[in-house]
């Protein structure tokens, strides 16, 4: 927890662990892990040469390459907002890290409305995307941006509804309290439907397969990222993966009991292990499914996930009434 009486320790928490540096290292690991996992599924080798072990430094090498590339701003683009958008995106993603605890002590800021703030930040991210798309002043970017806007707004609602049951059971919006109230039983056992809805909505929020519609490369080049290259693209990718990491930890805290686990393993390691499991589960669809169509995705969100999240809430209420939680 952030303590203003100890400024150095607080700074270390924000910048090193569990803050930015740890998140960035984890993100680089995630990129490598995703490429390797996908490669194994597709009977390929994947990254192999950079780094001593199985090309583990490949994402780092890619990032450095992006760092040295020329920053290209299209002539017709709105330069100020075009360059601002990646930073904006990064800020929104990184802010989420502050509120998501890795263990009871490893949290930068806990608040009794932490979950609400996270949801607010998630609803802010389509705005950053539409800024990027609009500032690019490109047809493909605009279509991709509008698709992203549709997708994220319609999936943010089932996502928020899917965690209402948990909030009722634990009686708090604070993530620390939510994890502590899972001592008797993880919420994934009490709210399995909520976990499924949250998982699918998170996939859509992150624009991951089968919901990677805003970046459908065969129709609209790269969607809203089309005009970005070099380090701006690198920042966008990092921001996306930080959001991915944040949502995976959030899933762990909400449904998998966070850092709760048998004693000899430290709590932080439990969180990281469970997060890795969630990350793997979120990556596997990329090797299994094609991309959905935008209208099918919206129909699935409004007529599939939204009612399911409401049913889940009802189940939660029944459980509270009969199990005396």
């Amino acid at each position, binding site marked *: 927890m952030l303590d203003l009486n100890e400024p150095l320790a607080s700074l270390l928490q924000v910048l090193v662990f569990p803050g930015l540096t740890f998140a960035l290292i984890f993100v680089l690991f995630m990129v490598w892990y995703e490429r390797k996992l996908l490669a194994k599924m597709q009977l390929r080798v994947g990254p192999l040469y950079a780094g001593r072990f199985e090309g583990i430094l490949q994402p780092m090498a890619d990032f450095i390459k992006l760092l040295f590339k020329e920053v290209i701003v299209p002539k017709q683009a709105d330069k100020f907002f075009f360059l601002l958008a990646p930073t904006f995106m990064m800020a929104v993603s990184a802010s989420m890290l502050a509120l998501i605890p890795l263990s009871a002590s490893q949290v930068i800021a806990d608040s009794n409305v932490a979950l609400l703030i996270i949801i607010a930040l998630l609803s802010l991210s389509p705005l950053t995307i539409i800024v990027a798309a609009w500032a690019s002043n490109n047809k493909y970017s605009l279509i991709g941006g509008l698709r992203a806007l549709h997708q994220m707004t319609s999936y943010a609602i089932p996502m928020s509804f899917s965690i209402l049951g948990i909030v009722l059971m634990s009686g708090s919006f604070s993530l620390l309290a939510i994890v502590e109230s899972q001592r008797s039983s993880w919420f994934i056992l009490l709210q399995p439907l909520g976990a499924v809805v949250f998982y699918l909505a998170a996939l859509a929020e992150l624009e991951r397969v089968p919901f990677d519609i805003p970046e459908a490369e065969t129709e609209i080049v790269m969607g809203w990222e089309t005009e970005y290259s070099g380090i701006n693209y690198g920042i966008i990718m990092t921001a996306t993966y930080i959001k991915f990491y944040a949502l995976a930890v959030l899933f762990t805290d909400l449904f998998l009991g966070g850092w709760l686990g048998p004693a000899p393993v430290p709590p932080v390691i439990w969180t990281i292990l469970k997060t890795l499991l969630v990350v793997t589960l979120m990556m596997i669809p990329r090797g299994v*499914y094609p991309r959905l169509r935008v209208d099918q995705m919206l129909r699935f969100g409004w007529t599939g996930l939204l009612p399911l999240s409401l049913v889940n809430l009802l189940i939660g209420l029944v459980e509270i009434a009969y199990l005396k939680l």
Partner: protein
Amino acid sequence: MSEVTLNIGPQHPGSGHFRLVVSVDGDTITKATPDPGYVHRGVEKQAEYREYLQNIPLLERPVISDSNGSVYAYVLAVERLAGLTVPERAQYIRVLMAELNRIMSHLYWLAIFGIFLGHSTMFMWPFGDREAVIDLAQRAMGTRLTYSYFVPGGVRNDLPDGFKDQAIRAIEFLEKRLIEYNAIFMKNPVFLQRTRGVGILRTDDAIKLGVVGPTLRGSGIDADARKDEPYDVYDKLEFDIPTFPNGDCYSRSLVRLEEIKQSIRIVRQVLEAMPPGAFRARNPSVLKPPRGSVYTRTEAARGTYAYFITSKGDKTPYRLKISSPSFRNLPAFEFLMRGSHLADMPTIYWSLDYWPLEADR
């Protein structure tokens, strides 16, 4: 939102060298105008300046994914024009290689369909498994894609020793993989959602538009030159023409997968029935066919591939006309895309297995 015109291509990541001018109103395509010709190289005219044998490498260049299928009809036409006889072994070898090429082409099609649908595993698996057939082809014909293997009067060289065993191993491997493809790609719920009921080409529309090949068979018509006008030894072999009645992208996909199975069946029979003997008739290397015209058609991987050749008794053809399946399927673009979603554009596009080089020639 008012109408927006999008240029898909001519150098778009998915479409190959071909431009599609698409007008969209929201997410609905109001007009799709194909604009072929970006990779037109005047193959037909070039062919008039080359001897009959020299034309083979030229004519297979437009269709590198199915190069045997594209010169098959040419070789048959020259043979008929010059009155050459072909040894039976050569006929069997040609059928064998044409079918292997068909398998290769359909696997390539499946792989690129994966790209168009955003399914990266569907791209990697068939592309990797295609290597089994390519290795086979390389052993027999010397190169991976452009073989120049069929010549008037037979084939260029005989099969190497041990080819039969290698071929059996390869097709057994493919048969195993096809079962997995069926389970993972064809029965995938998202794949079904994306392809079933999308781009429906009804039987009467298919006939009116004059489409050919798997596109036509996907609309429920069992037209196949291998059965309708058997050439070489196709009439001695047992195989079925798969058709599916729905005419949507899913039917067209199933036709191609089923055709791979039928090709494997043909390859098995050919390997068993292959007689010994000469692989090529002794012919002069510079052919001078007598005056006359001839039209031949064969079933290449993408559909009916036909040649019309006129000879004036010279060592070069006087006129050579190619009718390629991709060009025949081009009218279906405009017809199928009007009124569909923008996101269905790639699905419809590749379900027709359009190969810009083949259409432009």
